[in-house]
């Protein structure tokens, strides 16, 4: 089969581009450590979330020094807790599930973004910066009220976080 010299050159350049793209993602995973949503969490019964330790009471919990876990419930048409309040400069892992249909969980303007599938728990870990407010939107069509499904993520100073989360406990 005759292949023109320019075409061979083009073919080589194309293969190089493909390898570069694959390499860049691989580097992102092993270098800066960009983690993916994966099957890390076991499946869950979407019909029995009120009996689940984490999702019967959606909340933010401290699990280590400067480490927090947020258990978030998505439903037609909102998120719980709302707002989600986390402290600044901390590591927050979100565990998100749905009690009805497929939703999305997107912290607007960031790469914190995951599908939320009933029967599954999505896990994403983020590093927070300074105090800020972010919108959270459902970015997967979930029914007639989809466009009203929003939430809020508030990154607040540590003192304010302690006040707002522990205030009720009298600490």
């Amino acid at each position, binding site marked *: 089969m005759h292949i023109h010299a320019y075409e061979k050159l083009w073919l080589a350049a194309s293969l190089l581009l493909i390898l570069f793209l694959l390499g860049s*993602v691989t580097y992102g995973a092993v270098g800066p450590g960009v983690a993916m949503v994966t099957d890390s969490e076991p499946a869950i019964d979407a019909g029995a979330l009120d009996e689940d330790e984490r999702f019967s009471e959606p909340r933010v919990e401290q699990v280590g020094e400067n480490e927090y876990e947020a258990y978030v419930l998505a439903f037609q048409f909102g998120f719980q807790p709302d707002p989600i309040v986390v402290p600044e400069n901390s590591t927050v892992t979100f565990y998100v599930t749905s009690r009805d249909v497929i939703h999305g969980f997107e912290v607007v303007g960031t790469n914190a973004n995951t599908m939320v599938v009933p029967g599954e728990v999505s896990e994403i870990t983020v590093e927070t910066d300074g105090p800020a407010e972010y919108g959270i*939107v459902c970015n997967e069509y979930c029914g007639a009220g989809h466009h009203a499904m929003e939430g809020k993520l508030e990154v607040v100073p540590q003192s304010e976080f302690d006040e707002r989360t522990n205030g009720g406990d009298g600490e």
Partner: protein
Amino acid sequence: MSEAIEGERTFADKFPEEARIVRAALLGSFLALTLGAIFGIIQTLHRTGVFRGLIDSTDYYTSLTAHGVFLALSFTTFFLVGLFTWAVVRSLDRPLINTKITWTWYGLMAAGMTMTGISILAGFVDSIEMSADVLFTFYAPLQAHPMFYAGLAVFIVGSWIAGADYFRTWLAWKREHPDERIPLQTFMVLTTMAMWYIASSAVAASVLIFLLPWSLGLIDQVNPTLTRTLFWFFGHPVVYFWLMPAYLLWYTVLPKIAGGRLFSDPLARVVFVLFLLLSTPVGIHHQYLDPGIAEGFKFISMTNTMFLLLPSLLTAFTVVASVEYGARQRGGSGLLGWLTDLPWRKPEFTGMMLAGLMFAAGGFSGMVNAGMNINYMIHNTIWVPGHFHLTVGTAVALTFMAATYWLWPQITNKPIYSRSVGLFQVVLWFIGMALMSNAMHAQGILGVPRRTAEPEYSGFDYPTMFGGFEELNIQIAIGGTLLFVSTVLFIGNLVLTMGNPKVSGLAETLPPALSGPDDAPRVLDNLRLWVGIAVTLVVLAYMLPLAAIINRGGLLGPGVGTYPVWLSPMLDALANAATALLGAIGDESAALVEVIR
């Protein structure tokens, strides 16, 4: 057309019955295009907040389902079965074996799409307890009316019989021409249909085994991740099912219009074989953000996806080289000077070239989608519809429209009503799409979600980067309006063309490639081998993920409810109100009867 040889017969002259089928398929396609465009303009204006008076935001999703199904499934598939019928009959130079079968598949496809279409459009009428507001992707546990799924199944079965029709016609030809190479256009049709059989098997299984019985109440629940994965098993290769007919036109028709011929027949075959092999084992790249699917499976899917860039990159080279050859045949010279020696006044040429140019842009945004990590920035944002309005919405749709200006006269013997309006129409599409798609990509980076009636939220404002949210909305609205006008011009021009008298001398021939099929290794024509490898790759890519998904959630779901969007509480309330009203009327009439007595 000047280069037509006087007295040569057109396709319509040689194969009148087949020409009738091609016309019927194309007309079905243009009906879908018209409907899709109407919903398109409604959505553009609604979503951007320019005009929300026509539909409620809750009905936006009915419109969006109609827009997706009519354009992505109906417009594309009807056009391509028409085009493929033409391509097979023309390149084999023999009629179909039995046009009764041909009309059967056409009838099935039309009936199936009508059923699905009715179930969607009924969503606008509150008094009909039927709707299918599940969008083109119909993710469970959102549930459509059973007729939506049944119609899809019938439509797909129709397309399978169409494929069998092409294969049987080719086998008949092969008996008559035992030692000849498969003509290039037929080769392209057969590889595309082989890919389609593999790809659509999954969605057919999903519909027939899970979704249809579930919507009929025969089973209680389904596994959302499983049906979603089976959808994307089909959902990515289906984009190549749309694209490969456009490639067929770019490879075999565009070079001729440019005044030249195809650069290399063997490489065209290689490209189509690559599509057959690689189109399907990539669907999980639509599920990078899905929980319940291991990262490793996602990585394998990404690797396959990146290699799927190869046939498109090769196509870019071959198409440009073929067009350049045409320009130089016409006296073009210089490094880029030949560009001025191309037939830019022909709508079929300019339309296809602009479509190819936009496909390049769509290819680059596709590389972003395919990258597992940067995908997080844009997943399910309006960036994604921005991307596929460049690919299926322009590379495919604009190529089909442009090709119609060339093909329609040959299947009708009627010249196009106005070729200058045609030229204006294709350029207008390009401008409209450039505005709309670019602004959609930009909004996506701001985090604006796709598939929403009201992308503005009460609790926060979007960050401002490439112009603010509002400004980009205006660009989307203007672009969408231009696209609608362009579609109206296309359809109007075609309707006026139908009123033209039949003339002779419209025949066009397609010259053979510079490097002909004899330069291609014989093994390229061994379809059994390629289908075998394609199936193996699909099994390798999907067996473990599907097993893992079923293992996690069960074949029929991990305790997930049913959310029919076709029997909403509002409808129940309406029904109750109606019953009460009827009861009251009954009492009234009873009282009236009493009085009369």
